[in-house]
């Protein structure tokens, strides 16, 4: 990228040793012997929740999924709601790292790393559910195209089959992308390591990175290619997931608007989750000067934009229902807004459409705490969106005789809540041991990088050779 666009958002420190400061800000987090107490408290709590998650899943696998509230007609209850919810969360990361990268949105550098991490952990959480929600969790390999003595293949007409490929591809690429981005920073960790263990450990994951300009050159190319590969995935995954519903015949599911609607929702929810994570992170790990208010503000703007998209979709669903003249379709939507699940519907509307509008006020969208609050609301709203889609549609399908009402069991709540335990456990570990911010990239767009270009010699003392390089590499 043109060196001229110096990242305007990274506030000072200016001056020669600012690279050192950036490096310090980030690596310190992983290097201090004792992380802040907040971390321990959070981690301990996350562990407990994770335990609850595992025990509830164990209970379900042992006794049968009847332990959940699933019934007829609502054969998909919480598990699938949670699955779609987490998959949705897992969108912001790749979007930020890939699409914004291709669009040269340099400000992404401050947040892309843990956005990516978040993506991966969210996909992990999502991945748990399809596996355990099936009636016979010991047979998922029936869905894999493995040759077998039965001469049986999976049925490729089924959207669930498409899911498998979509999600696994997405997970693979995201992980590669994430890991690759971290390599230079691992090198930095390695080089600053004080203990052998750290040295060797980071040394191995750094894969012998020395920051030679050749390495940088190849690295940037590869990164670019991966970004290009990842970009379509951002759109494809949730589109495919939305097919689970869109291809079905059920009123409320059977609609063509789902793919874009789901993708918009995913980005919406994803960014909400990023701010929810970013605000405390910058607070507790002293990254205020790297993840700045401006970053939050920009994300909030994206939240407004995507929120409006989602709101539009909600409206459009009603319009189509009316316009199609389909009796069952119309009933479904009237029932959504005013039927037994109206409470869920209006929770969704207020969290996803109304509350984000507060971001129109600069005071609110530039205040980390209101940002955090609204982010939380959006996440709640996005969970309810999936709940509404699944439960209201299924409980009021074609024959009134098969109508029902879904009541979740305690196990349902334990599984839902528990999945956050998994997510946060992973995330906290990430914060503690991995580079939370893409140092090299941040540096690349810092004024210093500019300066560095002018008189490259000045900060030869900066430890890792990697730091001066990006600018140089980027130029070429």
């Amino acid at each position, binding site marked *: 990228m043109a060196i001229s666009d110096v990242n305007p958002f990274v506030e000072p420190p200016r001056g020669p040793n600012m690279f050192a400061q950036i490096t310090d800000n980030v690596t310190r987090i992983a290097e201090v012997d004792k992380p802040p107490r907040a971390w321990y408290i959070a981690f301990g709590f996350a562990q407990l929740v994770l335990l609850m998650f595992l025990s509830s899943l164990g209970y379900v696998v042992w006794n049968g999924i*009847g332990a959940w509230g699933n019934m007829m007609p609502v054969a998909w209850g919480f598990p699938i709601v949670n699955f779609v919810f987490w998959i949705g969360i897992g969108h912001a990361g790749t979007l930020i790292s890939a699409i914004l990268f291709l669009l040269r949105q340099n400000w992404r550098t401050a947040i892309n790393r843990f956005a990516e991490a978040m993506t991966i952990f969210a996909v992990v959480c999502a991945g748990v559910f399809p596996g355990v929600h*099936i*009636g016979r969790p010991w047979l998922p390999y029936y869905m894999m195209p493995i040759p077998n003595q039965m001469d049986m293949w999976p049925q490729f007409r089924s959207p669930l089959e498409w899911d498998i490929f979509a999600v696994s591809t997405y997970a693979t690429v995201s992980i590669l992308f994430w890991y690759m981005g971290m390599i230079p920073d691992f090198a930095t960790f390695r080089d600053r390591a004080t203990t052998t263990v750290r040295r060797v450990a980071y040394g191995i994951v750094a894969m012998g990175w020395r920051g030679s300009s050749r390495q940088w050159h190849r690295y940037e190319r590869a990164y670019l290619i991966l970004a290009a590969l990842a970009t379509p995935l951002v759109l494809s995954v949730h589109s495919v997931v939305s097919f689970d519903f869109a291809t079905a015949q059920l009123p409320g599911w059977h609609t063509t608007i789902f793919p874009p609607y789901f993708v918009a929702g995913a980005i919406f929810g994803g960014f909400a989750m990023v701010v929810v994570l970013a605000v405390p992170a910058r607070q507790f790990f002293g990254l205020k000067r790297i993840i700045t208010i401006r970053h939050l503000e920009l994300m909030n703007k994206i939240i407004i934009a995507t929120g409006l998209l989602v709101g539009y979709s909600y409206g459009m669903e009603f319009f189509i229902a009316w316009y199609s003249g389909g009796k069952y379709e119309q*009933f479904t939507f009237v029932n959504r807004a005013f039927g037994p699940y109206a409470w869920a519907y209006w929770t969704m509307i207020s969290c996803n459409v109304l509350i984000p509008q507060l971001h129109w006020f600069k005071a609110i969208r530039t205040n980390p705490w209101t940002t955090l609050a609204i982010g939380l609301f959006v996440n709640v709203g996005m969970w309810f969106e999936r709940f509404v889609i699944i439960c209201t549609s299924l409980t009021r399908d074609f024959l*009134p005789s098969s109508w029902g009402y879904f009541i979740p069991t305690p196990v349902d709540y334990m599984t839902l809540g528990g999945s956050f335990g998994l997510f946060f456990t992973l995330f906290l570990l990430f914060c503690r041991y991995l580079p939370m911010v893409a140092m090299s990239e941040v540096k690349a767009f810092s004024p210093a990088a500019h300066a560095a270009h002018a008189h490259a010699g000045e900060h030869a003392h900066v430890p890792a050779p990697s730091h001066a390089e990006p600018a140089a590499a980027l130029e070429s």
Partner: protein
Amino acid sequence: MSSIDKKKTSLRVLSQAQAQAPARAAEGSDTQKPTYWRSLAELEQSPEFLELASREFAMPLDQEPPNSPGRRRFMQIMGASMSLAGLDACRWREDKILPLSRRPEGMIPGSSRPFATAMEINGLAVGLHAMSYDGRPIKIEGNPQHPDSRGAAAAFHQASVLGLYDPDRSESVVARAGGARKESSWAEFQKTLSDLSTGLRSARGSGLCVLSERSSSPTLLAQKQRLLDTYPEAKWVTFEPTQSDGARAGSVLAFGKAHRVHYAFDAARVVLTLDADVVAPTFPAGLANARALTRLRTPERGQMSRIYAVESDQSLVAGLSDHRLAVRSSWIKAIAAELDARISAKVNALPELGAPQAAPAAAFLKDEKVQKFVSALLGDLLLSPNIGRSVIAVGPNQPAEVHALGYRLNQLLGNVGRTVFFTEDSDAADTSDVAALKSLVAEMNAGKVSTLVMLGGNPVYDAPADLSFSDALGKVKTSIHLALYEDETSERSSIHLPAAHYLESWGDARSLDGTISIVQPLIAPLYGGRTASELLAMLLGVGNPNGLELVRRTHPSLSAEHVWRKTLSEGVIAGSGVQRVAPKLKPLDKFPLSDFELSSKGVELVFATDAKIIDGRFANNAWLQELPETFSKLSWDNAVLISPRTAQELGVKEADSVTLTLAGRSVSLLALIAPGHADGSLKITLGHGRKSAGHVGGLVAESIDPVGGNAYAIRTSDAYQIAQGVGVTSNGTVPYRVPSTQDVYSVGAIGLSGTAERLPELVREGTLEEYKKKPDFVEEIVEHNPLLSLWVPPVSYEGHKWGMSIDLNKCIGCSACVTACQAENNIPVVGKLNVAMGREMLWLRVDRYYKGPPEDAEVAFQPIPCQQCENAPCEQVCPVGATMHSHEGLNDMIYNRCIGTRYCSNNCPYKVRRFNYFNYNLDTIGITPYTPTDDPKAKVKAMIFNPEVTVRSRGVMEKCTFCVQRIQNTKIKAKNAKRAIPDNEIRTACQQTCPTDAIVFGDLNDGRSRVASLQKQPRSYALLGELNNHPRVQYLARIKNPNPALAPAQEPKKEHG
């Protein structure tokens, strides 16, 4: 790969397939599961089986039921059914094969064959065919030869086979002294008995009393006579809690003599039912009535009968009726009187018929609706072509006077001898059961009864509350109770004797028209039970009575062996029906009408026989308990039904818990608001709330709650059928999920309007006039775009093309088909909670919809099996191909391939798919056919399974398959014999048992098949056809034949569900 799969197989997938064990057992008795014998060996160690074994092998040959080699080998089967799989390390389970050591002539192992037998309830027998799979009765069907069955069987008939294998059945003679329970034996009982009888003989039987269930068995009645000859002083009392005396007493009033009344509905152009659910299986000859009544409901004939129903509760006949008047049961007397007055005025009644009743001065008779109804009705009844072509039927709950009036009205209208017939009821007692029991209890209390022999029944539980039979029983020195279960009465008797199940018994019984059926056993008594007549024989001094001999002695006409065998295989004694008579009607004097019968003050409570568990005798039958009740769709409970308005007046809300109080006695139970129920009338069914029924029906001793509320607790001898002035107090809503399978929660205003909007399309309906004008009116009810498909149909259905046609005009909602399906397809019971959570497993459900204003809603039924769509939504979405399309157009469901994503169910517009959320066989009924168990009870339970159908385990989806096992077996048979399959040779279980022939299955490619012609009929339509699923099931629209005079009554088209 493969072995992994196989491991799965044996470990999981259908490891339960061993549930099939019996199945394979079947085959077992000759091939397959070895373990049978292994487990048999185990078995033989256990005492009950040792005893059994001795009996079995001691059985002399002549006692061997004919043509039943299978049964001779009962022990093998026992063993077989108990196949237990030990998992072998490297390979899956090692199976053993246990050939019979001598295979009887003509026996083909692994095939099921019907044996004719009969089941008697309340003195009325219905002939049955019991399907025996290698000596294991596994399914009950109707006996086509039997006049009251014609191949049909009610839910409780079919479920009775489950009772045979009920592990709660009592297994030994039990003696009780001062609260101490002591297991005893028949031998000891024999001793006790001989001591007793010497004493009794000397006392000429004074102090001896036999309390018997009502029975029409010639053998039993002959023995009764012999007993009374031997013990002149002895007393014989018959008590049947569901027996209402109205018909008998009414006939005495009208003819001076007890008669039975028979209706020929297939000759009736106008039918009026007065509180009479003539098509209900619990109604005398109900199955036959259903068949006859629906025969004239086929619009294709151009003519239809017109049915008027006057009743307090929704009844099965209401679903058929063209006009229905919901009034209190206690008002019907006045209505009958009104009819009598007005009809007598019109027809020139012969003087010897006496004067008519005076038109009663009842406010409700002046009511505009009632007036319209009555005059329209009269118009029809008195229409000249209808004279002698109508039927007026009176229900069992009505008092004698109404029955007498019914007879008189039929006489006046010239129906007697044309549509209404009489036979003499020679066995009828001369008092009502209640009166008889009352006097018995009086004697017991007076200490006049030293020995009370109870042949079945459960009086401690079901005798009128005011008699406090239990206390009286305490005053009897020796009380002997013969029963299938150690029930409430056994617990208070000094001796309990295990009774033989009717499938274990020799016997005989008469149907309503007197036709005698032979009851033959399909299996040697599992627990050494004996029949009532065997016990009587013992009383009469026979040491070791032989049921077969007893029966054969009663029927000398059948002594010739070939005659006997022929009779057995047919199941009925040809021409044994009772001669019809034309009794002379006596003038009836004017009946007084009580204030209650005229005015609308107070609330009446109607005690009704339960359609599922009758008087409570089937309370421990899980199939029946779980079967959704026809109207409330309530399973696992009973409820007091209240009309919407009355509920409002009484401050009762849907699903409240209410307390009914009657003469200081009270019972609390669930209240449900029943559309179309008569205002001021409450209905409660008998037989629920049992405390010692068993592990299914309630066993307080083991803290298993009773199911539902016990109506007997407030039923007294003076308020026996219809109680007046019952107190109702609501305890408000209790935190309780109603175990109902439809409208579990009120669907709310939107739901109601939505239902109303789509109902006309789902259950399409028209009048005879409309139909004549435009036979294909159903086509216009739904307008939709032309149905185009993206794909060329994947299969061209050469060869067979299976389809089904269901006639909504004939379905009475009796749910016999549901139980048939459950028995045929090994459908598990899920239990109360899971039903409440919406997880019932029944493959075939009967949807019930209400139409019109709640206060007099019309009811419509719609059986929903899997529609076997040609363009099936379920097939497209299964990721593993566990549900695939067959070349004959079936949606094959492969349990072993299913991993349980449940997507298919979500995508099924009919929601006919059922999912095993738990391992129901194991978790809820404790059958563990495939996990090793030493519990003989679990093993016995496993004997019920149909070998031809895989038993599903946890986590797999299942659904109706059009009884594919029947299709396959017939196809193979036919092809082996190089012959074509004639129409109607393959019959699905539901079709086979349907009393009204509403379900027709067959090959759509066979132009001459019934189903093909039915689906071609103009009123045939596909449910939700506009979705372009091409369902293979089609429905024949409901056609009503309303009286033009009442047309506006149809007006309020507001509908709700």
